[in-house]
């Protein structure tokens, strides 16, 4: 198992609901391959530094994943199939940043951003509490 940060940029005309469903699809693909999504961040509809396929803006999503190389290869295969994905990148990292990344700190105004972050935390807390209770 390795640590990966994977970023996908979706087309500007994708609705926020669409972004959610697509990221959920990617998450389910990862889950079926036995990978664990540690962190999910939506950076919002950002201005692109240069146009990509006539898109001036894009929906940025970052997933921090604990996965095998095969799972990431499968995810990238799906990135290529999905027409809404205009750019993606997967990076192998030593460890994940604790807490929200710099991107999230810079855009305080956009509140749509925090989507799945609290869910992960509550799950972890619950398991910890269960362990305590068992003891």
């Amino acid at each position: 198992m390795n640590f990966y940060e994977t970023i996908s940029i979706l087309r500007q005309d994708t609705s926020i609901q669409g972004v959610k469903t697509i990221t959920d699809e990617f998450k389910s693909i990862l889950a079926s391959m036995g990978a664990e999504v540690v962190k999910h961040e939506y950076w919002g509809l950002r201005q692109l530094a240069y146009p990509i396929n006539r898109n001036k803006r894009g929906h940025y999503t970052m997933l921090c994943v604990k996965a095998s190389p095969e799972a990431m290869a499968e995810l990238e295969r799906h990135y290529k199939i999905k027409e809404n994905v205009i750019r993606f990148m997967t990076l192998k990292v030593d460890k994940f940043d604790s807490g929200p990344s710099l991107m999230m700190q810079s855009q305080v105004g956009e509140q749509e951003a925090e989507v799945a972050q609290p869910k992960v935390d509550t799950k972890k807390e619950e398991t910890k509490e269960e362990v305590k209770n068992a003891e």
Partner: protein
Amino acid sequence: MQSNIPTQDGYISNFLLFNKTAEVTQKKPTHHLVQNPHLINYKNVDLLKQYITKGRGRIIPRRITGLPSYIHKKLVREIKIARILALLPFASGA
């Protein structure tokens, strides 16, 4: 040359002759990126923007920024990642 300058076998030591006193030979303060190399990340776009030119978006050479080579190499890598993700511009033509 009779003065209170301490001499060694009649010669003034180089340390005093070239005025290498503590104030003059003070070390340059270390760059904040050397102290916090974890700040160099493709997500830290505001920081990376300081190391590309404003007009054409070219990476500023190390001889101008004066950074250590290992820090500069790291910066270059992260700038190039940010360019692929359209967070920073590629160097535009003349």
